[in-house]
């Protein structure tokens, strides 16, 4: 009896420990410059104390204005041919919009069909065995006296056992062959014909996209633009830990591994926004490392690329904000072409041309951006960007400046 009481005590203590940690709100430690060290940046916040708890008089925590799904619905509403951007299936594997994901879907149907047949056969035998077994038990119970006390003992049957070894072997052979056939088509080690190379670099917890080209490299973050119909040969690298690039409607996932370059490819069939997210656990904010792929008409894509290649807008009316950006630590981590060259955070040269911040989960508008700069941790707890404790006027100025960076 003692054992049972002891067990209950342990469980209670364990749940109390969990509950107390939850109640304490387990302060989130800033992890700034964890990876900064590896790219040779000055260490910013190593010695600073953890984010202080919010004083009781503080305003209620900021809630994000609007939602990305609503915004996406507005973005595509003008194009009746675009695939849906919200609802079940927008990140599903059964709505492919690109050759590799379509091949996988077709193979999946075949494998599903085989598995369903096996399922029905095996569970069918199980059900029949159960029904017959229960009936045999009832019969035996009823006529206890005139039947033998145990059923017939069957030790095995060589032909039957050969059959249920050989048949699965044949199925396995078929599955192996169809797998290898599909792999030959999509698990390729050289770029497809007429493809465009794009580099994706995973960071804790955002995506960097680089478009190499003879006219200079275009660098953007979290929102990737591609031309419709042209194969994209995506080079996958990581700046810190392992991430995984997964946009289910375009291609299967592939890991981004530090020290090991991977490639994957896709080719969007039609114009639209394709959503995905990091699929390999990469730390605190793994959940908010979303990917947005915009498939544009080739001409639109070229226009976008030209726009992104330009240096940042310099607008005299927001000069105050520009000064704030340059005087505070912002420039250590963020690049704004012509102003700073920080590498640790997303490139902000054309921030306002994007639809989202925070790696795809916050719609970009002035209020959201201001709250983000004020304290990113209230929107994305544990993220690597620190609060710089700007005064409200500075905050407004720098927000206004960033909102001009089209």
């Amino acid at each position: 009896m003692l054992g049972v009481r002891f067990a209950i005590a342990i469980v209670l203590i364990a749940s109390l420990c969990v509950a107390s940690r939850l109640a304490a709100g387990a302060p989130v430690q800033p992890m700034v410059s964890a990876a900064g060290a590896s790219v040779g940046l000055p260490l910013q916040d190593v010695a600073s104390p953890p984010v202080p708890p919010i004083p009781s008089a503080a305003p209620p925590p900021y809630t994000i204005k609007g939602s990305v799904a609503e915004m996406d619905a507005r973005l595509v509403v003008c194009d009746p041919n675009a695939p849906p951007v919200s609802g079940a299936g927008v990140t599903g594997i059964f709505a492919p919009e690109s050759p590799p994901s379509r091949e996988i879907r077709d193979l999946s149907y075949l494998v599903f069909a085989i598995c369903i047949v096996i399922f029905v056969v095996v569970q069918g035998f199980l059900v029949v065995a159960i029904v017959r077994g229960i009936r045999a038990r009832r019969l035996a119970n009823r006529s206890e006296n005139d039947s033998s006390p145990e059923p017939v003992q069957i030790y095995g049957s060589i032909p039957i056992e050969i059959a249920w070894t050989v048949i699965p072997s044949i199925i396995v052979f078929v599955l192996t062959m169809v797998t290898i056939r599909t792999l030959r088509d999509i698990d390729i080690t050289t770029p497809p014909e007429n493809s465009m190379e794009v580099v994706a670099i995973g960071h804790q917890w955002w995506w960097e996209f680089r478009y190499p080209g003879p006219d200079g490299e275009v660098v953007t973050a979290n929102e990737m633009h591609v031309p419709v119909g042209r194969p994209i040969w995506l080079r996958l690298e990581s700046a810190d830990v392992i991430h995984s690039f997964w946009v289910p409607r375009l291609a299967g996932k592939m890991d981004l591994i530090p020290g090991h370059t991977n490639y994957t490819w896709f080719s969007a069939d039609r114009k639209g926004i394709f959503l995905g997210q990091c699929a390999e656990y990469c730390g605190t904010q793994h959940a908010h490392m979303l990917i947005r792929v915009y498939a544009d008409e080739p001409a639109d894509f070229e226009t976008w690329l030209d726009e992104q290649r330009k240096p940042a807008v310099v607008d005299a009316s927001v000069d105050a904000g520009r000064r704030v950006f340059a005087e505070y630590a912002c420039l250590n981590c963020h690049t704004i072409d012509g102003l700073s060259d920080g590498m640790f955070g997303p490139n902000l040269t054309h921030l306002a041309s994007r639809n989202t911040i925070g790696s795809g989960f916050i719609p970009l508008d002035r209020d959201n951006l201001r709250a983000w700069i004020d304290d990113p941790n209230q929107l994305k707890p544990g993220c690597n960007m620190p609060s710089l404790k700007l005064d409200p006027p500075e905050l407004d100025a720098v927000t206004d400046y960033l909102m001009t960076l089209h």
Partner: protein
Amino acid sequence: MQWAISVDHKKLAMMYIGAGLIFFLVAGIEAAFMRLQLAQAGNEIVDPETFNQLFTMHGTTMVFLVGMPILLGFGNYLIPLMVGARDMAFPRLNAFGFWLFIFGGLLLYFSYVGADGLYGAGTAPDVGWFAYAPLTSRTFSRGNSTDYWILGILVSGFGSMTTAINFIATILCMRCPGMKLMRMPMIAWMMLVVAFLVLVAIPILTAAQSMLLFDRTLGAHFFDPETQGSAILWQHLFWFFGHPEVYILILPAFGFVSEIMPTFSRKVIFGYPLMVAATVGIGFISLGVWAHHMFVVGLGPVLDSFFGATTFLISIPTGIKIFNWLGTMWGGRLQFTTPMLFVTGFVAMFVIGGLTGIMLATVPMDWQLSDSYFVVGHFHYVLFGGTVFGIFGALFYWFPKATGRLLNERLGKWTFWLLFIGFTLTFMPMHVSGALGMPRRIYTYEADRGFEIWNLISSIGVPVQMAGVAIFLWNVGRSLRRGEVAGDDPWDAWTLEWSTSSPPPEWNFDRIPTCTSARPLWDRKHPEDPDAHYE
């Protein structure tokens, strides 16, 4: 006190199982918190840091502190009794292994109790149960939590190795007169293969964890890509342990099914020699499939194809087992006691887990489904629908032998149906949310992607399962005091443990039994038609 100093295999086994059940409750509570958080999109019941600790501790606990000790505990209890020996070959080594496991488990959990910044204690580990490099490096995992993870598992791993040595020595050297290898109960075969797998796999993990510890504390560079180390090396080492580990967790449950199903079908196991061959085959093949956990690492088409093929291959011996169990049931007179319900549920659920496994072995499908909730659904069908159902079946089946009292059948059936329904509610929808694109290990998910309803159903299943477990605990407490007295052989079974008293004396058998076939008690009960005639 007589328990703490005991080297009796039965007492150690019961402590193994008891401790495993306590950790089962703790890890279950961790899972319940996760399901609470994921019941709706954008919940803020736990913060991201805590959520990451919850899934890390849940996985680590369930694999190393629940699955392994309970299964090794059953091996400990049953092997000497079933092969007709007085104790394990090395009783003191056996006790040593048990206390290492306890120490390792407590060390791991001490990280949870310790507060931030308290000297020597970190927060709970938050690197996931397979702890991929370089997330575990000093740079990305500060503090001591990952060191606790390493040391806790390292220590309990040594315990598992000593137990495995004991199993092998006992099974090979201490069988009673007449018990040839091919007359051993199926469970002894399973445990023998498991013991060999433990001896092959766990040292690899121990080595990898030592290397990681060197990286973290002595400035080595095994897994640090910045200094020409390899992040992929960790995955190879971990999964070279990790895949055999899956079979370490499922083979003993196969053994439970292979003992319980014949008893309640009133038939001999169908195709004993093929069953043995399939078990040994699984043991060998399971050492050659590890990279199917790494299809998204970019190993290239040749390795992808190879490991896809070997993974398909392992479904053949596994399928043979399922067919042999069906063959055992076929034409039997089935008696649906609680243990039989659980092992029948095992077969039905394991088939589903096996089939989703085939889907994941299809490399291109794995590229879509890997690291999604589909995988979470898959391995819970194998390890919950499989291993845990097997364990519950075994608990109901051998409880009367260990305590002398039967568990209550009515409460047992409630436990089964609640667990079965709760399990299906929780884990079946995960296949859907995974196919809809929901990655695993995210503390919250975006609304409007169709994940909400499936996550809500998953969460609703949790209280149903908890009710089943609560009834089980009540049943145990009640039956220990007031349960029906079992007698030596309550199930009219055929293996040697039922020939001694319940509970057995410390020396197990007054006289070492002799064995004439794979079912020695059948031969005694049916002298007119003994099994020996059919060998």
